[in-house]
């Protein structure tokens, strides 16, 4: 008699874009980058725009020159320190053609799935990692997908893969991070559940009608699952 085993799946969708830093961090970055610009070397326009060329003329016309130093004038707020057409007391501001600047446009990070609160979509919360949670109607309990390991199974990750295909169909592309299980979960019936970590790369999870599913981030998982269960999987998320 083979000891019964269960295999679970930690199927995640990794962040699609870099998250926006916290407001305090943004302020810190802004301060440091302004300080860096202040200390930066003068832009060598003589290197990029050769003397007497049309491009040099166009570039020079766009620039706002510094206030020139004049020995006959008393500068109350400090004398200009002009070198290569830059006041070295300040950061150098280089003005480019307006069309060039307009090319970079920030796109919204809130997607259509976010506004509709479509928890079945993979395009929600693109700044965070999402994990697949399922709710079988027979059990009526949200948890990570888990399957019985058949006696003739070749290995845990094969069993996990077969289980995922039988539950969610064949129309997705996943990558198994490692054959090593990421964790063992304890259950009341004393059957250990080994968690295999996977990433979804492409496609959709399409289960039967009697299975509910959701792609959720860590905070949302906490609200959906039992407290004891969340304590066990918290470190993995």
């Amino acid at each position, binding site marked *: 008699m083979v000891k019964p085993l269960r295999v679970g799946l930690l199927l995640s969708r990794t962040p699609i874009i*870099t998250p926006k830093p916290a407001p305090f961090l943004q302020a810190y*970055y802004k301060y440091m*980058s302004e300080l860096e610009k202040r200390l930066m070397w003068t832009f060598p326009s003589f290197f990029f725009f050769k003397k007497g060329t049309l491009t040099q003329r166009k570039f020079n016309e766009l620039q706002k020159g510094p206030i020139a130093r004049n020995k006959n004038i008393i500068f109350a707020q400090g004398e200009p320190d002009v070198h290569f057409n830059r006041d070295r007391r*300040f950061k150098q501001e280089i003005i480019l053609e307006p069309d060039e600047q307009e090319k970079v446009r920030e796109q919204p990070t809130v997607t259509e799935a976010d506004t509709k609160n479509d928890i079945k979509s993979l395009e929600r919360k693109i700044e965070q990692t999402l994990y697949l949670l399922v709710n079988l109607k027979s059990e009526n309990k949200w948890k990570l997908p888990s399957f019985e390991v058949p006696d003739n199974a070749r290995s845990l990750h094969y069993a996990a893969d077969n289980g995922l295909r039988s539950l969610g169909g064949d129309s997705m592309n996943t990558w198994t991070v490692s054959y090593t299980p990421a964790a063992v979960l304890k259950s009341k019936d004393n059957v250990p559940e080994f968690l295999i970590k996977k990433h979804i790369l492409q496609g959709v999870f399409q289960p039967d009608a009697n299975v509910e599913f959701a792609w959720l981030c860590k905070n949302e998982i906490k609200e959906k699952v039992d407290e004891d269960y969340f304590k066990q999987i918290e470190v993995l998320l």
Partner: protein
Amino acid sequence: MRTHLVRNFSTSSALLGRTGVSIVPPVHHLIRFKKSQLSDKARPPKSWVTSAGFRPQITRHDRLRQHYNDTLASDLLLLNYTHNETTVEGARRKPRAPVTPYSVYQPSKPLPQHTQPTKDIKPRTSENIPHLERISINCFAKPAIENRDLAITAKVMLQHITGMKPRDVFAKTNLPMFHLRPGMPVGAKVEITGEAMSQFVSTLTELVLPRSRTFRNISGKCGDGNGNIGLKLTKHDITLFPELENSLELWPETFDIDLIVHTSAQTDREARTLLSGLGFPVSSEIRK
């Protein structure tokens, strides 16, 4: 009444309400200093804002680091993890056994022929997940032997693509048949860390390598045995860096460069896995 003064980083005397140096000729040295202030010990380190060499290190959100922290680190830990692992001792000279009063004063046992000493491989934990340490870039500009000005071109080229100030490389050997003499400038080199390294890696993996016609992939066999990976970029690849691409007519010549990516990985295989996760194309043929 004195109004708000703009600070000059070259001199801070103005802030204190004095001129600092004499501006009325004849100019003499009027700044009082002690000789001990001129020693290296008295100079503030570069990390201090009062130092002349100060440069802010963290100026923007690091995308590569964020990706590493969010996704890569936990994956690498699981990938490299082996259950009940113990330290694998590296090859090194060991004392002779058994220890006798005679053997204590004997030289230690040499390694077998053609084997280099290697480091111990410690069990993989969350403390030693491989990460990028630094990238050293070396550019040997061969045409600089004929035309020594091209060594400056190589230096400026490295400065453009890395954003850091490179150092000169001088010839050490005397090779009369190549007209090479010791002391001739033959190229430039630079080591990048932190933000500059992250920027360089993302430019390389997102803009340069995908468009390169010559670069195939990082071989599945490469590495120096300590988790450091070397790769080469040809002079055509260099022109794909956006810093050079938009002003190609300014560059009479570009040069091949050698990169060495230093990682904290214990084996080459782990280092290659890390690079693959960072977006470098790595060949699938495997060697430990």
